[in-house]
């Protein structure tokens, strides 16, 4: 179909316009009928960590649906050889896997984890909020803004199409002209800014706001993982920012960083993976932290080998910066470079192995309770170990000449990213749901979700290893009968549908839990060990009027065992100030306007948006929300 301005449009875009209009209209009606607008305004203007964390997770679920639908289209198109499913061939297929990968990494996995950090980390530390609540709101709205920019592209029939790695020169304007990959650049640029701010916020919170007595050596492992991850973000994300900026200059202003006489497409690959490899540890370390807390809680034992757990995550974080070229073994960097990066990559298996054995030995001699969060943690162990051992196989540089860019790699990274990050996020959501909402998710539906998801997962991704070994490259929209990969792909597609179905149980569970007078739970429904379980459920905006004093790891647990109460300090210390403000969403809005100006090369909009952003900085420089608090303080 040909339309003015937008041009030639295929039916999938039109169908999504219609569906979006219908769902959007229904939502507007529902919100108005149920008088939900004040609640929404309350959340938009909030700087409270629990509310912001909850919104992170809600948006992540929304984008999970989007990325998941992309995955279903991919799997349907690949179900049988020489398939012609709907529109998903050639360019359309390329758009779908590009948006699938980018959305899943930046707009699903990241916000799920950051959301859980927002909710749990301050509570576990005994802090009343993050160190910079206002900055936290900015981070969140920048994420939303970047995610909207990226997801908008599809609706304007201009979805990015150079893969989530956007390799030059394919991502240059010579080979992919049009706004498509501009959306990629600006979507990631703006949400990445938000991520960097979150990292700063987390580091300062952990450094400054721990409860009295909570030395770093007594801190639970989720905050520890958050600390290491945030440091990785602080180093890795600016590299992405720079890379995207250079790519933008190549695309917009004819520079030649990644091509031409002096530039080289390999520079892009280095920059991208210097960011990209740490990024995968940024995604998995918080999940490790979540699993550590959950396995310990539901084994009723403290974590085995706490010190080596901490050393391991730190080591993994450090080594994570020294392995990027294992994504470039086939580039021809030479035997020396390939060997060195092969060995550094293998080294990472050691601290990871230490963690796995410590988790196992935490359960030994414990009392292992099979709750939903624990099931996800248990599912994680074999799944992630498979992903880990295929990782070591990939590290064998010479062998990677075969695996590289084949379905073997697709299988490997889904084992680590779904087996690690996504299972971890699910576990964390079931575990901390009482802290978010005051209610417990239904255990029975939770278990259905787990079993369908994990079975579907292995069905989807195990066969892909063999498809790869039989010569199926990744990012292909079709294959033939002679390729001999039909069975692998067919099983894979069935598994993907099973995973899709399992997600319906989550929606049903949410619906059931919030439907009607389900009663609230008390502060400590799981018999927990860490400070978040000393507060009410849901956690109030000011959870610790008197901060507990901690004298050991899992102090709350030992207090319960000894039937005492945690001592509390009388010393009140200055708390982060929470306010109600609409500045963050406005800033995110004007940045989005500016981005659209760039994406479509509309100079006037760039100036308008850029000017507004500057104006915003000025306004912000002259406001100080602490003034009011000072005034109050003086009066009393």
């Amino acid at each position, binding site marked *: 179909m040909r339309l003015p301005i937008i041009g030639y449009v295929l039916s999938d875009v039109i169908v999504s316009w219609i569906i979006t209009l219908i769902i959007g209209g229904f939502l507007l009606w529902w919100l108005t009928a149920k008088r939900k607008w004040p609640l929404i305004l309350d959340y938009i203007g909030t700087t409270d960590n629990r509310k912001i964390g909850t919104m992170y997770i809600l948006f992540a679920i929304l984008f999970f649906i989007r990325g998941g639908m992309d995955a279903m289209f991919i799997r349907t198109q690949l179900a049988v050889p020489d398939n012609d499913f709907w529109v998903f061939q050639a360019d359309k297929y390329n758009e779908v896997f590009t948006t699938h990968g980018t959305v899943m990494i930046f707009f699903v996995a990241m916000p799920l984890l950051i959301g859980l950090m927002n909710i749990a980390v301050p509570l576990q530390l005994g802090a009343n909020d993050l160190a910079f609540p206002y900055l936290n709101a900015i981070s969140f709205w920048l994420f939303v803004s970047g995610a909207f920019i990226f997801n908008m592209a599809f609706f304007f029939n201009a979805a990015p199409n150079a893969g989530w790695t956007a390799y030059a020169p394919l991502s240059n304007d010579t080979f992919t002209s049009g706004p498509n990959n501009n959306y990629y650049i600006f979507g990631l640029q703006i949400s990445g800014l938000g991520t960097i701010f979150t990292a700063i916020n987390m580091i300062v919170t952990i450094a400054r706001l721990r409860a009295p007595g909570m030395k770093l050596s007594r801190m639970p492992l989720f905050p520890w993982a958050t600390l290491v991850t945030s440091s990785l973000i602080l180093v890795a994300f600016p590299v992405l920012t720079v890379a995207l900026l250079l790519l933008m200059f190549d695309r917009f202003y004819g520079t030649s960083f990644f091509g031409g006489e002096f530039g080289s497409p390999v520079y892009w690959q280095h920059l991208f993976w210097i960011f990209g490899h740490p990024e995968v540890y940024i995604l998995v370390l918080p999940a490790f932290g979540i699993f550590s807390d959950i396995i310990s809680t539901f084994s009723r034992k403290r974590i085995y080998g706490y010190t080596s757990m901490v050393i391991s995550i730190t080591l993994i974080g450090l080594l994570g910066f020294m392995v990027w070229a294992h994504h470039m073994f*086939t580039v021809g960097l030479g035997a020396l470079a390939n060997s060195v990066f092969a060995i550094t990559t293998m080294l990472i298996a050691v601290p990871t192995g230490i963690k796995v054995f410590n988790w196992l030995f935490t359960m030994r001699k414990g009392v292992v309770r099979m709750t939903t969060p624990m099931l996800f943690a248990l599912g994680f162990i074999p799944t992630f170990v498979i992903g880990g051992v295929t990782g070591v196989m990939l590290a064998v540089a010479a062998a990677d000449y075969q695996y590289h860019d084949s379905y073997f790699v697709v299988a490997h990274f889904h084992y680590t990213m779904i087996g690690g990050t996504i299972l971890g996020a699910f576990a964390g959501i079931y575990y901390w749901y009482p802290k978010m909402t005051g209610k417990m998710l239904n255990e029975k539906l939770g278990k259905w979700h787990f079993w369908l998801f994990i079975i579907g997962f292995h069905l989807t991704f195990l066969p892909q290893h063999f498809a790869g070994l039989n010569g199926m490259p990744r990012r292909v*929209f079709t294959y033939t009968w002679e390729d001999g990969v039909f069975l692998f792909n067919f099983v894979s597609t069935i598994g993907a549908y099973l995973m899709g179905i399992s997600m319906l149980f989550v929606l049903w569970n949410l619906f059931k839990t919030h439907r009607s007078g389900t009663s609230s739970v008390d502060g400590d429904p799981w018999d927990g060990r860490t400070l978040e379980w000393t507060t009410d459920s849901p956690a109030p905006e000011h959870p610790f009027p008197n901060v507990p004093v901690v004298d050991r790891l899992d102090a709350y647990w030992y207090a319960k065992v000894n039937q005492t109460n945690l001592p509390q300090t009388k010393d009140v210390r200055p708390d982060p100030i929470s306010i109600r403000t609409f500045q963050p969403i406005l800033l995110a809005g004007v940045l989005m306007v500016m981005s659209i100006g760039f994406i479509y090369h509309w100079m006037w909009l760039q100036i308008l948006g850029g000017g507004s952003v500057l104006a915003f900085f000025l306004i912000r420089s002259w406001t100080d929300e602490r003034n009011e608090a000072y005034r109050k303080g003086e009066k009393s």
Partner: protein
Amino acid sequence: MKKTGWILTLFLLSGCSLRVLDPASPYADKITRLIYLSFGIMMLVFVVVMILFVHFLKKFHETSDRVDEIPVDESGNRKLEITWTVLPVLLLVILAVPTVTTTYQLTSGASQGEGGQDKERVIIHVKAEQFRWEFTYEGGEVSYDKLVLPLDKEVELRLTSEDVIHSFWAPNLAGKIDVFPDKETRLVFTANKLGDFQGKCAEFCGSHHALMRFETTVMEASAYETWLQDQ
């Protein structure tokens, strides 16, 4: 975990027919051995983890008589922790040594474009462009999407791209080598089995990346010469 077992059997049954594990050159054969070695070591690790996992779950899951039990506090065990640090290191050393030697053997100077002029080698120029392969032989003969190689002769491919990055991959014969617009890469191997082998572009290169395939035919040296003359 039953599924794993099932698919593993399938793997063992069909292992030898998966292209990567069905080498038709000493080059690919080296990789195949390396893959089996790494797979073996890694299965060992996986099995150990699974035994502990299943055993601990069977033995220590909550039963109705243990609902109120509070297990004895333990913080760790130096000796055990050293064990599972040192053993993996040993396993990795066993893997790392052949990794490095094979990587050096296969990543000959040739892949960086500095191979000497070896008289014995058959040199074929490969040009990749969206979305086809052009092969130029020593006498200037040209073929598209079809590469013909003489049996038991060392060939050296010299690859360049006309546009974006592609990657040359014929899984039975050799590993991948990326093809760049701004530099020449090389790949050296010797086909030692007659027959037709699939080849594919393995680096995403745009709309019809999936269709950018070629076929490799390995012929007796004499048949190769006649084939060249017919071009």
